[in-house]
């Protein structure tokens, strides 16, 4: 009886006594912070870019995201959502780079495929020693790239979705490193040489086991390792033994440089917000430089490069001269990135790196 009375009470009628149909609760429709704010297509064929979405309330990129959850920037927060764990990098200075949106658009627009964009049919006719050296180099470069893919994707879950430009760019960076991995794996496999000796692994561990923060990971992975890999690619693009080798290296350079651009812009931004950061960053770089130097003391990488550039074991001496220049350029590139980021290393470079800059073919072994 009580239930029947309640049902009758909830029936609504208009002034003429006609039944008024029940309307759904549409109160969600006013849960918007930016109704009416329009993103515009960029002029001159730029299209609708990620950066063009940053208008009105959506352009407000806070210095801190208060919740550890998946709230998209500018969305209306669900009541009581609170923190759900993860996403513990909640500060802008821990991840931001102004260029991230631009680099994402570039990466998407400049995508390519090693399967069809490399003249693989030209990767042939090399003497066995040069082919072996290329396979050795390909093994190491593909391993470097594989580590990078794992590292970026591992950190992605820790970065707040509120800085979506960074997450978008890093998503493309995982593809870029994956492309370098499979590109060099294909190069190693194409003539039957296959995978050879893996790299010494000191730098791989230094990068993978960076628990201090994303910024420190960026310093190791994209200031130092990327500078070495990019310099190797630049020399391969010029001195590679086949057209396929030169093309593969040349096509990979822009991918590497987008990562470097994000890295330097991010560290520069971090330092601009937290002027005390360079102290820790400098100490961190000391350690990573030593890790890279230890890896370079292993002669396998430099010898394989010398054989490639010298066109064979017989030409290794001449090839090693090019390797010395390459290593000098590597350190110069690294120093340039540090300078770009307002993290000058010119007076604090560790001894082994100073030796490379002076033209050594490998850092000296520590004295007993």
């Amino acid at each position, binding site marked *: 009886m009580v239930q029947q009375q309640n049902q009758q009470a909830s029936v609504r009628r208009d002034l003429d006594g006609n039944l008024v149909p029940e309307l759904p609760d549409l109160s969600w429709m006013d849960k918007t912070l930016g109704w009416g704010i329009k993103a515009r297509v*960029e002029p*001159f*064929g*730029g*299209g609708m870019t990620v950066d063009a979405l940053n208008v009105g309330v959506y352009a407000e990129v806070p210095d801190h995201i208060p919740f550890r959850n998946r709230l998209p920037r500018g969305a209306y927060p669900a009541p009581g959502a609170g923190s759900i764990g993860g996403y513990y990098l909640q500060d802008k200075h821990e991840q931001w780079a102004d*260029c991230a949106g*631009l680099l994402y*658009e*570039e990466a998407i*627009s*400049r*995508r*390519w495929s090693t399967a069809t964009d490399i003249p693989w049919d030209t990767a042939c006719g090399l003497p066995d020693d040069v082919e072996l050296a290329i396979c050795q180099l390909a093994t190491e470069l593909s391993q470097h790239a594989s580590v990078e893919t794992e590292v970026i994707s591992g950190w992605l879950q820790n970065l707040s979705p509120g800085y979506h430009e960074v997450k978008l760019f890093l998503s493309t960076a995982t593809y870029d490193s994956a492309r370098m991995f499979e590109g060099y794996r294909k190069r190693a496999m194409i003539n039957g040489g296959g995978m050879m000796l893996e790299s010494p692994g000191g730098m791989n561990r230094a990068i993978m086991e960076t628990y201090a923060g994303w910024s420190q990971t960026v310093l190791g992975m994209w200031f130092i390792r990327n500078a070495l890999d*990019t310099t190797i690619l*630049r*020399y391969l*693009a*010029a001195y590679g033994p086949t057209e396929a080798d*030169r093309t593969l290296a*040349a*096509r990979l*350079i*822009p991918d590497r*440089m*987008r990562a*470097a*651009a994000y890295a*330097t*812009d991010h560290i520069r931004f971090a330092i601009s917000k937290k002027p005390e950061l360079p102290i820790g960053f400098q100490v961190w770089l000391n350690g990573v430089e030593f890790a890279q130097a230890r890896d370079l003391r292993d002669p396998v990488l430099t010898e394989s490069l010398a054989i490639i550039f010298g066109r064979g074991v017989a030409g290794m001496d001449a090839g090693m001269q090019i390797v010395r220049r390459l290593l000098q*350029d590597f350190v110069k590139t690294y120093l*340039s*990135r540090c*300078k*770009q980021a307002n993290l000058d290393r010119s007076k604090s470079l560790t001894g082994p790196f100073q030796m490379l800059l002076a033209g050594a073919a490998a850092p000296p072994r520590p004295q007993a």
Partner: protein
Amino acid sequence: MADIEFPSVEWFQALADITKEDPTYRKFGRLNAVIVFKCGDKHISTNFDVLNIHEIREVGENARRDADFVIEMEPDVWRGMLDDIKKNGHASLDWTLNTLDLRFDEPIHRNELQDGFKADMFFRYNPSLQAFFDNAAKIPTKFVAPVA
């Protein structure tokens, strides 16, 4: 087509007109950079704007500071590169922008204000720039001797 003087605004405009329609160039994707090409005492500024190439004009020495980066080569190196492109239809190994950048004591590219971020665009956009200059094979070029 009559021979076009290099370096000149007309020459770079002709190159831009060909390149904008070049499927190879377009496949390399978007870029954003104002580049000044320096040959002798001539400075030609070019705006690579997504897939458009425009605002090609001769500028003074001071305008180099407004560019993202400058590509500077001696007149005989410019000529060597363009002759090689004409001969092969594209730059051969010794004459690519990347090889030329490694060949000399100083790189051929730089940012006048030592902004490494902008200077590095040379590498980020290198395949596009190479495609741009490879199209010089299609332009009848007459070299003038600029005042060094």
